[in-house]
């Protein structure tokens, strides 16, 4: 559901605070890394492609991996495996083309999100193969994941006591990789190598969230390999993702506005803004400590409800329309001292949306942290999330020690490749204004704004049909964003159970009366 760039608040606030559910997987992966450190056979740089299955899909796919140097400057040095999956077209066309779908994060595995891609790209898959590549540092491709073990429970921890620097250092020490090699530009070379390996002459690109950065770099460096590009939830090259703090604040304002414009929501939660400010202020004073049933195990467990957890849970809930609809109720309950809905929302985001935090740090520290201008830093510092993020990355990037990308990295993309840009008005990560920035030098592009979509427009609207049309026609001229304006807004939750108008007591009584009379 969450294709989040920065899909996780805790991830930002404390880049090494991930444990538990990921732990077992991470240990296995760490073991899996050992053979990868051994030099691969230079003559055979691709393991055989074979039929395989991916999580959540019953259909047979083709899986494989290619070996690439971890550091392209040392082609004979350490090799890493880049894994890919090809989801075959149902009725393949003769063209040697395919769609490459690029996941967000940075740090999400494209292969682990195969089910979501498959559902969204159903129409595209009727005629085109779809390629998913685990970008270096994510998923099966030498994942840079850290296993924290400093705390026994994510619910109990008070994030403000967290030593980011020490935890980041520990994570770095545990990783068997040159983390400076895991930026977007190296990953781009891997992508192009996979394309060549699979023998596709040209690619259609679909990038979501951070994936749009990869797609734009592809447009810049290998324009001849591309037919069309779709950028969904656009991160323009000119923009540092750390400016996301303002986008989050904007999304909160939109939510409160939405609720007050919605008759049912406004009636049920007339003082939503006051409620939010009240809880925020209380938790800023001191976290609330209570004993709650663990969301998963049901065992009594200590919950330290901090401001960070509260705001982080709400922020993550903004990503998907479904969880977004629960936010007013969650805020209202919290204002009345009931943190159950917040705990539930928080539990949903505890697995970091599958983000490989090491790779995440490599990208953000190399490409976003260092290009922040003092003005932007000042501006970002004003929002809560911006402030927390800057504080955290100041510490973790110091440890990660990534060389800064060239200044030209931030230049706008100039291209005449047919490009479709999709933005969601309610997006808490990449607001529509970012899409406009990316349009600057795109001469053959259209930018549509879906008024009721959040992050990942193609998953929530007819955006996926537009992608299919773009691929079929190979041009943006006939694309029409009209269908995106269809009102797909759902009601807000009015209590813990319903989204429909709650019948008043009188009405309910008379209902019972009629029922009795019958």
């Amino acid at each position, binding site marked *: 559901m969450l294709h989040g760039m920065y899909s996780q608040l805790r991830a930002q606030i404390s880049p090494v605070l991930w444990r538990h559910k990921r732990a077992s997987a991470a240990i296995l992966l760490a073991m899996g890394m050992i053979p990868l450190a051994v030099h691969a056979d230079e003559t055979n740089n691709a393991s055989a492609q074979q039929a395989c299955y991916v999580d959540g899909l019953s259909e047979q796919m083709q899986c494989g991996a290619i070996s690439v140097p971890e550091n392209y400057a040392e082609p004979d040095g350490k090799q890493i495996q880049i894994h890919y999956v090809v989801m075959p077209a*149902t009725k393949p066309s003769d063209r040697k083309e395919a769609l490459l779908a690029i996941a967000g994060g940075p740090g999400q595995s494209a292969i682990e999100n195969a089910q979501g891609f498959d559902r969204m790209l159903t129409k595209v898959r009727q*005629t085109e193969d779809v390629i998913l590549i685990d970008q270096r540092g994510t998923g099966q491709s030498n994942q840079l994941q850290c296993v924290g073990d400093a705390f026994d429970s994510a619910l109990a921890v008070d994030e403000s006591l967290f030593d980011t620097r020490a935890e980041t250092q520990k994570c770095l020490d545990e990783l068997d990789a040159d983390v400076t090699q895991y930026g977007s530009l190296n990953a781009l070379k891997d992508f192009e190598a996979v394309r060549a390996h699979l023998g596709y002459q040209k690619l259609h690109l679909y990038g979501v969230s951070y994936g749009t950065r990869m797609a734009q770099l592809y447009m810049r460096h290998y324009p001849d390999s591309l037919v069309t590009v779709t950028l969904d939830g656009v991160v323009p090259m000119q923009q540092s993702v750390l400016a996301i703090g303002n986008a989050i604040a904007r999304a909160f304002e939109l939510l409160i506005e939405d609720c007050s414009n919605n008759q049912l929501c406004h009636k049920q939660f007339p003082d939503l803004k006051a409620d939010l400010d009240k809880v925020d202020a209380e938790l800023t004073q001191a976290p609330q400590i209570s004993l709650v*049933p663990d969301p998963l195990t049901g065992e009594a467990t200590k919950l330290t409800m901090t401001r960070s957890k509260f705001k982080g849970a709400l922020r993550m809930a903004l990503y998907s329309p479904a969880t977004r609809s629960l936010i007013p109720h*969650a805020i209202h309950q919290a204002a009345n001292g009931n943190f*159950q809905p917040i705990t539930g929302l928080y*539990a*949903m985001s505890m697995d970091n949306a599958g983000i490989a935090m090491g790779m995440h740090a490599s990208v953000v520290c190399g490409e976003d942290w260092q290009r922040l201008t003092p003005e932007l830093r000042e501006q970002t510092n004003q929002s809560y999330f911006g402030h927390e993020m800057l504080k955290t990355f100041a510490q973790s990037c110091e440890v990660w020690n990534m060389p800064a990308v060239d200044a030209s990295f931030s230049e706008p993309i100039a291209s005449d490749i047919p490009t479709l840009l999709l933005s969601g008005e309610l997006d808490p990560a990449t607001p529509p204004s970012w899409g406009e920035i990316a349009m600057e030098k795109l001469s053959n592009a259209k930018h549509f704004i879906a008024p009721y979509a959040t992050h990942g427009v193609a998953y929530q609207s007819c955006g996926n049909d537009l992608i299919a049309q773009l691929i079929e026609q190979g041009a943006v001229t006939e694309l029409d964003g009209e269908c995106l304006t269809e009102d797909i807004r759902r009601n807000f939750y009015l209590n813990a159970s319903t989204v*429909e108008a709650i*019948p008043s007591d009188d009405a309910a009584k008379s209902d019972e009366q009629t029922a009795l009379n019958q």
Partner: protein
Amino acid sequence: MSNKIIAMIRKELIDAARDKRSVMAGLYYAVGTPLLMCAMFFLLIGQLTSPEDLNIKIDNAKGAPDLVKFLSSRGIKHGEAEDTKEIKLIISDDYAANMAKGLSAEVILIADASNEKLQNSIRRLERSLQEYSGEMGSLRLIARGIDPRIMQPIKVNVKDEATPDSKAGMILGLATMTMIYAVFISGMNLAIDTSAGERERNSLALLLSHPVSTWEIVIAKITAVTIFAMVGLILTLLISKVAYSFVPWQELGFAVSVNTSFIVMMLLVGLPVALMAACLQLFVSFMAKSFKEAQSYITIVLILPMMLAMAASYNIAPEAIQWLPISGQMQALIEFIKGRELPLTQIAVSSAFTLAIAIGLAIGMQKSLKSEKIVFGL
């Protein structure tokens, strides 16, 4: 010797070409069937798949506006127009009240599940309702501080071993049946014409009076009919190859393509069948007293291979048919289409059977041409 046979084959073919209409009648089948099949699949796919915008009747829609909106985002809407499907969704009066209390709110789905045209649409509606219910259930749990994953104690991960080829196997099985049948139909008219017809034109006795052996006559006739049968088969295959690529198979989730290896395979397997078909049809025609009688007999005799072919493509017969002519080859072909290993023994045995029957019939024909009863149709 062989020159004589070649000369006679030429004679048979020229003879056949003279009566263009009856020759073409045989080939019409070869050309028409793949086209008809494609037209049928076009219609079938249109009827089986649920339309993009599914219009149904929704009663008491204002009782659950959010649900109605959700369904509409899935393309399922209330409609009054003519394309509205015979599916009715009734939202109960106490829907909102039960929902608010955290109970199950009732909706009633009324439809005729035996109506095949509706099945996909009904399933789609059910799936959408299930999805809505699941999403709300998850959010209800989240609102109570519980991780919704506990509601899924078992996660079933299906690994479907079907390949795109094997999914298309059923359709191609049907197509294969019509192709095998093309072998029988294409040569049929020539077979009757060159035997019963020749006798009726009184040219058979003339032919026999020439210094050629009955064997040579029989072989020439069989060869001519076989050539026609194979031409029919090749035509069917080529037209299928082109026509099938226009059918929107992807709507069914797989693709059917008549590729080169299938064509080669089909021709190899088809040759013995064509030989047998030629022998069978010639033999029956010789046995018949007149042209018309031959036509009726052959129509009846053709039911047999037809049934064998059907039994094979629908998998409805006992094990033994896998060794019989036609059904054995058909089954092997279907396995081949599905991308599995080609059952060589099966093909060898059934093809041997086929050839044996062909030779038997040829010997029978050769003998019968020595009898006056047959030659003069007495």
